[in-house]
């Protein structure tokens, strides 16, 4: 069974059709890239999947269940985690605290006022695992707001990962990063996909990243789906070259 099925979803803001009748199917373990020129509706499309916005028409099926009208928190509980184009972290808390909050919420402790020694130990161990995986160990006790853009981005991805998602949505994970940072984040995403078999959908502008990572690519233009296929197919597609790649080249 497909993990995510988006069926003929549209989103209108008054006269503007931001997402126009788009469908997409993501299989378990797949890494799907969504590309397109600025204003193509990529982020709006993400916002519909994650519940940040509600679609005007169409349906979203996750793991066999219709989640079209569920609140964001409920979609998170089902296993959809996301990051944002503009990094969203808890700036005046440390990296460790940022991760700890995510781990505690994922463990179902969000309304607890007390943790047993055992539970506390498990939470701490999980936070340490995430810190190790992200390479943020030395920065664990610094305020996230003081870290570099790349490290903040890595923290946000680790927070999403702390939720043990079944589907991870990454909105331009390398936006605004230097070459080294882009490389590090790309390696991290690749590791999550290859080693942990995590299903990922990512929006990305950097074509090196897209063609390096993606199993399949969907191209949006002016809200509608222009093409879909493997990286090789997309690279050969003339409509795509005209609308998007041609301009970049």
């Amino acid at each position, binding site marked *: 069974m497909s993990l995510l099925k988006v069926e003929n979803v549209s989103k209108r803001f008054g006269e503007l059709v931001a997402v126009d009748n788009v469908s997409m199917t993501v299989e378990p373990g797949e890494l799907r890239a969504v590309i397109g020129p600025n204003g193509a509706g990529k982020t709006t499309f993400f916002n519909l999947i994650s519940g940040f916005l509600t679609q005007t028409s169409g349906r979203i099926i996750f793991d066999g269940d219709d989640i079209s009208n569920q609140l964001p928190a409920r979609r998170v509980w089902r296993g959809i985690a996301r990051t944002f184009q503009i990094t969203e972290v*808890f700036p005046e808390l440390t990296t460790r605290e940022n991760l700890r909050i995510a781990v*505690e919420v994922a463990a179902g402790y969000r309304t*607890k006022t007390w943790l047993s020694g055992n539970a506390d130990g498990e939470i701490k161990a999980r936070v340490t695992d995430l810190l190790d995986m992200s390479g943020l160990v030395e920065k664990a006790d610094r305020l996230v707001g003081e870290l570099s853009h790349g490290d903040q981005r890595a923290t946000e991805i680790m927070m999403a990962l702390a939720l043990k998602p079944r589907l991870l949505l990454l909105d331009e994970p390398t936006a605004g990063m230097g070459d080294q940072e882009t490389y590090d984040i790309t390696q991290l995403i690749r590791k999550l996909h290859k080693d942990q078999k995590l299903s990922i959908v990512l929006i990305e502008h950097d074509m090196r990243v897209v063609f390096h990572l993606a199993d399949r690519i969907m191209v949006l233009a002016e809200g509608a789906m222009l093409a879909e296929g493997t990286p090789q197919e997309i690279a050969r597609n003339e409509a795509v070259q005209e609308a998007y790649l041609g301009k970049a080249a």
Partner: protein
Amino acid sequence: MSERNRALALLAAIWAALILAPLWMPLLGGFTALGTRVLVLGLAAMSVNFLLGFTGVLSFGHAAWFGLGAYGCGLLLKFVALSTPLGLLGGTLLGGVLGALLGALIVRRRGVYFAMVTIAFGQVFYYIAFQWSSLTGGDDGLRPFYRQPLHLGIAVVDILHDTTAFYYFVLVCFACAVAAMAFILRSPFGRTMLAIRENERRARFLGIPVEMHIWIAFTLSCFFMAFAGSLYALVNNFADPRGLHYSQSGDFVMMAVLGGMRSFWGPLIGAAIFLVLQDYISSHTENWMSFVGLFFVLIVLFFPRGVLGLIQRKSAS
């Protein structure tokens, strides 16, 4: 000094000062009853800050729950039972439960809108207390009622006439309330409050139902506030509609900001400064509020983290 040691030193200093207050305050020209007022209004400011500083939600009508606590305690002592603990319980429940009910209606509002709605609720209760003279005494306030001696099984403590005994009674109540607050703030739930303060969008997309958590934090804050209000009725043997007024809410917010709203103890320090200034300046001029206001403006302009924030920053560098 490491951060942990500094925090422990601050904690020890605050508790030593509070426990020994009846000894050192008279030496500096103070009096024990002033210390009692600092504890009670400090607890109220800490309750406001539980929401403002740790959840990032500004209520500008929190005096409503404070005043309701005072009336609840006073009415119980006057009409129902001559028992100090029952009075405290009744006042806390009245303010807390009403806060929980009304809070459920407003948790979707944010920022200025939230503040405006809380002012409106506060004023509703102010006018009820003001107009319903037959029950509340109207503008003259609710009286007469008196705090009752405590029956501890082996001994009876006369907290009505012995101001030192009353101070320690209030200190014990204060200690229980702030211990509960600290306990909550250090828990997973407390960390979700910080998460909402820091970044509501991130909190929501971690799977925290933000409105529900704000409502719980608001409700807890109302209970703490009503508890402080009940104690205030015992301090004065009197409950007054002005305790519900939005200017009283403003005073609490001022105390919190003055002392430092990102620190746990800041509002207590803020309340102490506020009350000492009030006590000292008002004996010289009736325009004491102008001076407190000026002091407040200076603090906000130059030390936005408040007095305690300033001290902590200094010792950190």
